[in-house]
């Protein structure tokens, strides 16, 4: 670990370690390299995403260079580095969904929400993500909003689904 990184960790992130993060790291006391991915998963579940501070703190906890931790985190599709919208929409782009027209569902979602995959709408309500396969191929095309499944989605149903979530917070 370079001197500057060490300094950075010591002065900034540990002092400002958020309590939830400290609790997670405490739960993984004496963690080894093999616990890196579970720790990243726990942190993301608690905070919604992996912040720069979190990555640096995890690296220090595991006595690994922060670059290695970041390298692992960016390799896997599950990890993200910015917060989601209040409603996180996952569009399944598996083969079965593709054959049944999930591309036009995705296009319709982009149109309705005015964002592209990976973005969050400006009001912070919706974020859009493309996933490889949700595993509900029998009901294709499928989208999932905060883990709630919508099966057999057609492009013209998209607007009413989005509207139903808008209504939930109104």
């Amino acid at each position, binding site marked *: 670990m370079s001197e500057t990184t060490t300094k950075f960790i010591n002065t900034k992130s540990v002092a400002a370690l958020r309590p939830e993060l400290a609790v997670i790291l405490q739960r993984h006391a004496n963690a*080894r*390299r*093999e*616990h*890196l*991915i*579970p720790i*990243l*998963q726990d942190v993301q579940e608690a905070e919604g995403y992996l912040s720069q501070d979190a990555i640096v703190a995890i690296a220090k906890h595991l006595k690994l260079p922060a670059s290695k931790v970041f*390298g*692992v985190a960016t*390799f*896997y*599709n*599950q*990890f993200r580095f910015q917060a989601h919208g209040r409603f996180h929409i996952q569009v399944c*782009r*598996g*083969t*079965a*969904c*593709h*054959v*049944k027209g999930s591309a*036009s569902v995705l*296009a319709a979602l982009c*149109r309705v929400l005015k964002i592209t995959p990976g973005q969050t709408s400006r009001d912070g309500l919706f974020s859009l993500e493309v*996933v*490889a*396969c*949700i*595993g*509900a*191929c*029998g*009901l*294709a095309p*499928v989208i999932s909003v905060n*883990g709630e*499944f*919508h*099966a057999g989605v057609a*492009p*013209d149903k998209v607007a009413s689904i989005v509207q139903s979530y808008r209504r939930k917070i109104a």
Partner: protein
Amino acid sequence: MSEAVSSFNTDDIKILAKCCERCWHSPERPCPDLINCLTSGPTCHNDPACNERAQSRTKTARREKLDRPVIFIGTGTCGLGAGAGKTLAAIREHVQKQNLDVDIVEVGCIGLCTAEPMVDIQLPGRTRVSFAKITSDKVPALIDTVLANKIVFEDLVAQFRDEKLTPYEGVIFQDQHPFFAQQTRCVLVNCGIIDPNNIDEYIARGGFCALAMALRKQTPEDIRNTVFDSGLRGRGGGGFPTGQKWKLAAQENSDQKYLVCNADEGDPGAFMNRAEIEGDPYRLLEGMAIAAYAIGASKAYIYIRAEYPLAVKRLIKAIATAKANGLLGHNILDSGFSLDIVIKKGAGAFVCGEETALIHSIEGRRGMPRPRPPYPAVKGLFGKPTIINNVETFYNIPTIIERGAAWFKAIGTGNSTGTKVFALSGKITRTGLAEVAFGISMRDVIFTIGGGVLNNKNFKAVQVGGPSGACIPSQHLDLTIDYDSMKTVGAMMGSGGLVVMDENTCMIDVAKFFMDFIGRESCGKCIPCREGTRRLLEILTQITQGRRTEKNADALLRFQGVVLLERLASVIKDTSLCALGQTAPNPVLSTLRYFRDEYEAHIFERRCPAHVCPELLNYTIDSEACVGCGVCIKACPADAIIGAPKQVHEINQDKCVACGSCLEVCRLNAVIAA
């Protein structure tokens, strides 16, 4: 997932409760005869009252002897996706309101996804009957009629066959239903039937018998020989003989060996592992325990996709319950054999299905494959001998041990014994999971079990085995399914996803879809896979593009790509490091082999015969058929359609993005795509 789904209370454990004070079994000091005593008896202290009590408990758990009606509801992920959560709430509400004395049981998925949400009802003394598509609004009517001993014929699927119970007249049995008739259910035998959270039901149906038998009466070598003789091959896709793999690991001398269950099902179009775990999690634990005993491993990992939260939840519960009853953990059933099973959640990388990549991922590194040998069976997880098997492989183990190698070998064909679970999806009438014996024809699976192509369209191809697989056209539909026959048509078994495609599917678009997928999922370690698949995608994209600006050498470059497509694909195949890259060009090669005419139409005529590739499509409005209703104007996202009400509309070709929205909404067939 709603909280209702995970309803589980430890009071449910009735079978495993002590019969009387003389039963001394406890997790700390397990009784070697526990399973035998619980299921077949007699008990060690041979008390008639205890024997009877044990038998009565088993009967109850098997639901042979009911004192009140039971309502079963399928709450796997696909069931919940179709609205089973709301149906369940409606059932609970109705039962409470009417003050009915019934049991409500959540079961896994029986495999008939198109019929979800599925509700089964069993009245005391009568057979269990399944009903399809029970949305919450249908619940009160359904329950009231069935409890009044009438069967609603609309939405009825079938009744279960059971000699001890009175069947309903005029209702077909499950084994007569076209979806189930040709199936041989060994792996899925409990899925959709039992409560996956309830260990009693699993034990009452013969669960853990194989483990008890293996630990008491057989040596690890016996088990390895049985599995070897049974001819079981890996169900994850490669098809390597499981017994041989186990023997390799057994030969190794090491202080620690590992067993890994690969439940990182990432193939788009395959979902059998999820359904298996959600529907019958204890069977996985039993299969793994037997495997660990056979190879001498004391620690096992289940590497499961984080995208399957319900499966993870059920597994966690199952491991805890099994451990609390001495069926996992230290000194299982007093045999001296111990096994710890740890769940590792995958983080979403397709390449982690490859075993060396999976090992790196468990170790907390990037999931990148390494060259083999040394094989994981010699040097795997943390440098120790490691055996990695697929979920479905483990599901076969208990039956093989219980019924013997000869029984298993009698199912299937010469080199492919046993059964395989296929996931039917795409443009097929009945989607879902079907378990068939090897040797059945593809036509039977798609047209009999699956009910044929959706909406009476023409069958074009079936995509087998995900991104590593191939598209099989209609002339090969009579192919009998086994590991070797698949290779003769350039496909491979893969994990068993079958995606049916009809005339409206463009094969170049499908090839493009897979190249895009592989390009994103390639780990990037070796160049042929990383750069090659990207180049394949580029060439395919060029083929599906219209004539943009073809300046200077543009046309020449496009043709160079076309000419080199096949050569590039074979180079990637020959030079990639792992199976992901070696099989990545398969979708391109197989579509080139069987659908060359479609490629030619795209390349030479710049035409997409299936009307899919937007840039090669030209939408026009038939002035004779158009009445000027304006529906298409509203649907058009690009404001490309013009026309006053009740006047013939027109499409502005410069603005048109060829999305097909107008074609979809026009009820007069006035929109023409060409």
